[in-house]
């Protein structure tokens, strides 16, 4: 008898947790984004984020890479395998990124 009565409460609790799980990542995505550096490429090659987003680059290649903004706004140290670098984009605009050791590796970050 008591088990059947508890079920609605359990379902509500589960529903609440499920909602939080779906909403929270979306909230995080507004403030942070990750770019992977893999196989001599930035993945994704084009990323759109809101102003105030902290973008983190992570190098998965055995070869070191650097993350450099073409307009001179920022420059990472040389990133070995596993190293990361972050930059918070506060101003809207289109930012061109490249690797200064392999300058044919290009990417764009659109902030709007």
């Amino acid at each position, binding site marked *: 008898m008591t088990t059947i009565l508890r079920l609605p409460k359990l379902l509500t609790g589960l529903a609440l947790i499920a909602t939080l799980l779906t909403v929270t990542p979306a909230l995080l995505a507004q403030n942070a984004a990750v770019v992977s550096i893999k196989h001599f490429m930035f993945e994704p090659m084009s990323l759109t984020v809101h102003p105030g987003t902290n973008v983190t680059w992570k190098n998965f*290649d055995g070869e070191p890479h*650097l993350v450099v903004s*073409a307009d001179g706004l920022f*420059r990472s140290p*040389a990133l070995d395998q596993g190293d990361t670098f972050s930059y918070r984009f506060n101003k809207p605009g289109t930012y*061109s990124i490249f690797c*200064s050791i392999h300058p*044919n590796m290009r990417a764009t970050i659109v902030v709007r």
Partner: protein
Amino acid sequence: MSSDSSDPLLNPSRRHALKCLAFGGGTLFVLSGGVLTPFSLHASETDSLKTSGKPLFVQITDSHIGFKKEANPDVAGTLRRTIDLVNAMPARPSMAIHTGDITHLSKPEEFDLAGQLLSGLQIPELHTVPGEHDVTDGTGTEYFRRYGKNSDNRGYYSFDHSGVHFVALVNVMQFKPNGLGNLGDEQIEWLERDLKGRPSSMPIVVFTHMPLWTIYAPWGWGTGDSGAALSYLKRFGSVTVLNGHIHQIVSKVEGNITFHTARSTAYPQPAAGEGEGPGPLTVPRDRLASMLGMTRVDIVAHPQRTVLHDTALA
């Protein structure tokens, strides 16, 4: 009377006299057995110069001190072996050039170790240019602190050595969206001024890190604005362009210009397009030494030109 003593070529004192005359070149008419025979004294001297030449300098490149991954866990060791190879040469030249990527990540300790190893070269003169791995901080602070003096920290410079004009260029510090090497207008204008008025018979050697001609654009193997630079070099009778960066030998001759890249002393890279990118290529351990090495450049007379000899570690 034996026929030997009448033959001037077999008579020792006459042979000595003939040898002395040979330095001026030309033709000597010899009276031998009553017959006047033309004897070219010039031939043997120039033949030996034509075939072997005189060692002018060695090129070492892409030592990547600081690299410690699978392709070569001991780049200091292979640089040492390359230096030993140079030191063991029976006729050692008096000059060496390093065409860049001395270090792997521009770190002070990497430059320290590289400098230590390079000082083991039994060659009095060493000239360098930076690779993109040497200037990862953007301004090349560590590179210029150690190697910037002879160019007032500009990175590009020229000098004469044994009658050859050497030009050092930098193409790794002003990358454009095309992803290729870039010289920049200031350096190109300097090059035009530097070459102006020099006799076209003077051999020119140009050295810079990234290839000055397009080998494979998708991997950045080329220099976007080298066209103007090459146009200033076209009028010279002998131009040798030496580069590194691609960790393998690729060569091209265009008119009087010979383009040549050298093997790395650290690790090989895949051939153009054969892989996901221009990174270290891991080969079976017993094959590595055959893919590393250096280049010796000899100067040959008549006509004056360079001859390149690539030597592998094994």
